[in-house]
Structures are given as C-alpha cells and as structure tokens.
C-alpha cells in the first residue's frame, strides 16, 4: 500500500528494520471479526504465561463477556484473583475475591516493585500494546517468535536476550513461549506459532474491544451515506439543470 507512506504512524513506529512476519488476521479488513475460540485460547495463554509479569489494567473481568464467557464463568474466573479493598470499619485494608466489576488484577503492586523483580526493566501493561506499536499485531507476533541466539560479534549485555524485531535487538524479556507451554482444552495443538497467534489475537481484542461493533456500524453507516449522497447528487442535478 503506497498511501501508507503518508501515515506518521508507520514512518516512525518503534520497530527494528527487519521485515515483520505478516500474518492473516481475521480481524483485519472492512468485515474483520475476531475468532472467538482463538481469543479464549489467547486469554488462557495470557493467564498462564504472560500474567506472571504483565498486567492488563484497562480490562475488567466483566469484559470477558466480549470473548464469549458467560456471567457465571466470569464470576469463577474473577474469583481466582484477590484484590485489596477497604478500608473496612476497623480502618484496615483487606483482601477479597475479585468481582466481575473489578479490573484485571496485575502481577505487581506498583511500578517500582515490577522493575525490581525484572532487573530494572518494566514489563509494560498489555491492554493497549497492539495499538501502541506500529503494525501492532504483526509486530507482537514477530517479537514472540523472533528470539535468536546472539550473532557473532554482537556485544551481548548481561540479562538481555537477542530478538531481531526489537528496537536495538536486545530485550529484557526472555523468550516467553515454546511448544506446548499451555494445554488447550479444545484440542488445538499448542505449537509456539499457534500460541503466539492466539495471545496476539487476545491482545488485539484487549486493545480494541469495540472493533467488531465499530466495523459493523461502519459498514451500515457507509452504505447509508453512499445511498444518501447518490440521491443528493440526483437532487442537485435536477435543481441545477436549468442553470446555464
């Protein structure tokens, strides 16, 4: 797409210069929709793998309805987490089970602890990660599959990993995925590529939960506007036909 060159988003996106592994995402395009089963698998990957270090603070448990969970299932999922609430009548903070109305519980109490636990590198919140990177979905997928051994002559830093898609090539996150890192209940084979694809789809959803509604409303709106504009052209022509 040549026009894309004009988009500032792509001119200076923070990616390295290696060509991304472009995937066919079902949520791209005018009629794009999420693949619900992929989102649920991706959520499982997030819970079992990513959530150890990364939060998703803009999503509430109740939002999981959007990827096909029922209210009762959501209650159970939320119940697995504890949130700090209070102060109670004794003036003390207390832990309670998370409710569907609570935001996703993050792994760290605050940014400082997160840094301390990760060699000074802050594991970013993943709610918006797909929107916050140029070509976010392809970038994320590539990053998850982009770990390599250090090339010769590359000066490796302590506690850093080589990833050809990361700006500067050195990333503090160790390769998070591998084959069969999770076991899918729907029988899908959990290859590393599949896992990366599912978790990327899930994070595309957390970034844009409104995507399906937006696109379907968009198609209707455009249809309406095009019809109206053609009719207006007709009206305009009729009114103007007598003007010399």
């Amino acid at each position, binding site marked *: 797409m040549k026009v894309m060159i004009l988009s500032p988003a792509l001119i200076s996106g923070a990616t390295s210069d290696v060509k991304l592994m472009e995937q066919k995402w079902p949520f791209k395009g005018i009629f794009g929709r999420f693949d619900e089963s992929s989102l649920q698998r991706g959520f499982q990957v997030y819970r079992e793998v990513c959530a150890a270090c990364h939060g998703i603070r803009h*999503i509430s448990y109740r939002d999981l309805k959007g990827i096909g969970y029922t209210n009762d299932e959501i209650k159970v999922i939320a119940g697995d987490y504890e949130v700090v609430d209070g102060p109670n009548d004794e003036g003390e903070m207390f832990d309670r089970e998370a409710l569907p109305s609570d935001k996703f519980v993050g792994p760290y109490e605050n940014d400082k602890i997160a840094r301390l636990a990760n060699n000074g590198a802050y594991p970013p919140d993943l709610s918006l990660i797909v929107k916050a990177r140029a070509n976010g979905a392809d970038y994320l997928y590539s990053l998850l599959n982009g770990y390599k051994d250090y090339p010769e002559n590359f000066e490796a830093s302590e506690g850093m990993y080589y990833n050809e898609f990361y700006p500067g090539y050195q990333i503090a996150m160790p390769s998070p995925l591998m084959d069969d890192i999770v076991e899918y209940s729907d029988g899908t084979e959990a290859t590393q590529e599949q896992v990366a694809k599912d978790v990327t789809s899930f994070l595309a959803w957390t970034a844009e939960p409104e995507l399906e509604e937006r696109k379907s409303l968009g198609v209707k709106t455009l249809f309406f*506007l095009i019809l109206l504009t053609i009719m207006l*052209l007709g009206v305009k022509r009729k009114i*103007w036909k007598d003007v010399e």
Partner: protein
Amino acid sequence: MSKDTEKKGITSWIDERLPVFTFINHNLRDYPTPKNLNYFWNFGSLAGVTLVIMIITGILLAMQYTADTDLAFDSVERIMRDVNNGWLLRYIHMNGASMFFIIVYIHIFRGLYYGSYKYPREILWMLGVVILLLMMATAFMGYVLPWGQMSFWGATVITNLFSAFPVVGDYIVTFLWGGFSVDNPTLTRFFVLHYLLPFAIVGVVALHLVALHQFGSNNPTGIDVKSDGDTIPFHPYYTVKDYFGLGVYLIIFAALVFFAPNFLGHPDNYIPANPLQTPAHIVPEWYFLPFYAILRAVPDKLMGVLLMFAAVAVLFLLPWLDKHRVRSAQFRPYYKQFYWLFFVDCMILGWVGAMPAEGIYVTISRAASIYYFAFFLVIMPILSRYEKIGELPSSISSAVLSDKFDKGTESYAK
C-alpha cells in the same frame, strides 16, 4: 420573490421585532452567489459543519474526561471501552481534527489559487488566518489531553519553543507550564483553553461570514459580478450543492472513523505519558508537519522558532504581497506554475517534517523552506509587477459560455 405576502402570523410578528427571518432570507436564501462556483467553494461550508461536529462531540467528551495527570489517560480509555458509543465519540473528535485541517487547508489553497484574498476581501482573508491560528492552538492543546507519550512530549517540545526568546524565554515557559515541567497545572489549563478556544473560533467565523457577505463570494474567474445574470440565489442552488458535497465528505470521514481510526495518529500516544522516557521520534500531528519542517530546517533555535511563526504570519501580508490586478490563476500563467510548485513544496515540507532531522532530509527541508518564503516574499511581488495582464472574459456569464463552447469543440475534434 413576494416576501411581503409570505410573512404572516407569528413569523412576521417575530420578524418585525427581531429580524431573524429576514436575516436568514438575505444570507442563506436570496443571497446572490456567482453561478460558476466549482466544488472548491464547498470547503467553507464543510469547515463550518466540521466545527459544529467538533464542538458537539467535544462537549460530550468533556462530560466524561478527567483533566488530571493521574486520571486523564485512564479516563480516555474508559470513554473508549465503557461509555456507550464512547469510542465513536472519541474517534469522531480525534479524526475530526484531521478532517478539519484537510478541509481548511484546501480552503486556503483555493483562496490562494483564485486570488480570494485580494481587494475587497483582505479582511475576510485575514480573519481566516486568525481562525487558522486559533485552530492550531486548539488542536495542539487537544492533542495533549489524552496524556499519552506523544501528548506529553509534544507539549514539552512545543512549549519549549518559547524558551528560544532571549531573556524572557524561560520565564514564559515556566509561566505556560505553571511549574517547572509539563505537569498537572499544564494539563488542566490546556483542557480549559481547549474547551474555550472553539467558541472564540465560532466568533471569528461569524465575522468571517459578515465580511464574506459584504461583497459576496469570489469565483473561479476572479471577475466581479456585473449583472443579475451572473448570479443565482444561494438557495436552493448552493444549499443543495453543499449538501451533496457534505455527503461526499461524510463518506470519507466515516471511512476514516470506522475503518482506520488510528491511521493518522501515532501509536506512541497509546502509551501513558512518561516524563522519564522520550520516544525515539517525536512527531507532531500531520497537520503541523510542514511548520515543524521549517522549524527544524534552521540550525539556530531562535531563528527556527521565528521562521515557523513567520510561516503563518506571512499569510496576513498576502493581500499586500500580491498586488497583481488579476485575481484568478486561471488568467495568470506564470503565477499558476509557481502556485503549483508552492503546493508541491508544502507537500514536501510535510513529508520531511515526519522524517528524522538528519542527512538528506535536512537539505530538502532547507530548500523547501526557502521556496516557501520566496514564493510569498519574492515571487509574488515580482509577478505582481511584471506578469502581463492578459485578456479577461467580459463577464462571468460569457466566461461560462465560452468554457462550454471550448469543451464542445474539443470533444468534437476528438
């Protein structure tokens, strides 16, 4: 039109005391308009519609937004996720800013091509430049409100421009910030001003329209209206033409909002502001890129800032820089060529503005900046002196007819 018989009952009772209906009649119905306006004359009304869209969506957004550094980013995400149709509201407002600038830039280039800034429309033109300045200030402050990385660093870089002024520079910057860095006081005042300025724009737009209706619209030939035969009533001819143009515009606008809402934005603005980490490339919104390129083209900080402001300020002087008697570029073959070169030059400035300020881009941006100013300060005065005044059609009607005749012979020849 027999207005007297039309006015009856309550309408005439009100109109006699408060002549709103007469006013509407004068300015939106019978208002005589040159009959040869092309589609570039749609952009004024499109800008007006966009202003209304921006104000309505802006007011609704302000009901949900929180101007506090700890809460701003999250409140925007709440709008996107939890508020009913909040994503639609925000995407309309966000892309509306871009659409507004596209419309207004085309509107300006149209004026530049057809000499709409010349006698007797100098004040009309200058009011337009005031609107542009107000829009720029409003858009800049609006971009800060989501409090993402680009919001924060854009605000930091742009406010720091004022530190270029000797002696008072630092004082001004501290004053703008209300502190020693872009922080909560800055965000709060930007929000207040972002809410306020659009209403100032509405005021200037009203003056712009008063000035417009004093002499009526210019037209593609640039020739004054000479008789009733040159004009048609605004309603229904131009109302319906404006509606049709609006339809086309809304199709493009909707395509952007629904299918590429972040195409013109920057991904970094979905990262919450972090005062400790500057993004790799700070890029302003696309509509500021040509000016940003001029700023960066100059190695001296103060000069860069002054030139950037001068790039807009020079528009105020336009009526006195171009004193050529012919308005429309249609009848000015030399001006026409320089005009298109200027148009391309602005595109190039926009493009280099988005590139890193290094290597070949610096050279290009310098050459393009020089032409930008040369066009106004050198070429225009010289052309107004030496460009020959060719033969003009005797009236708008005759121009229109001969145009049709030309086309007819052309197709016949083929």
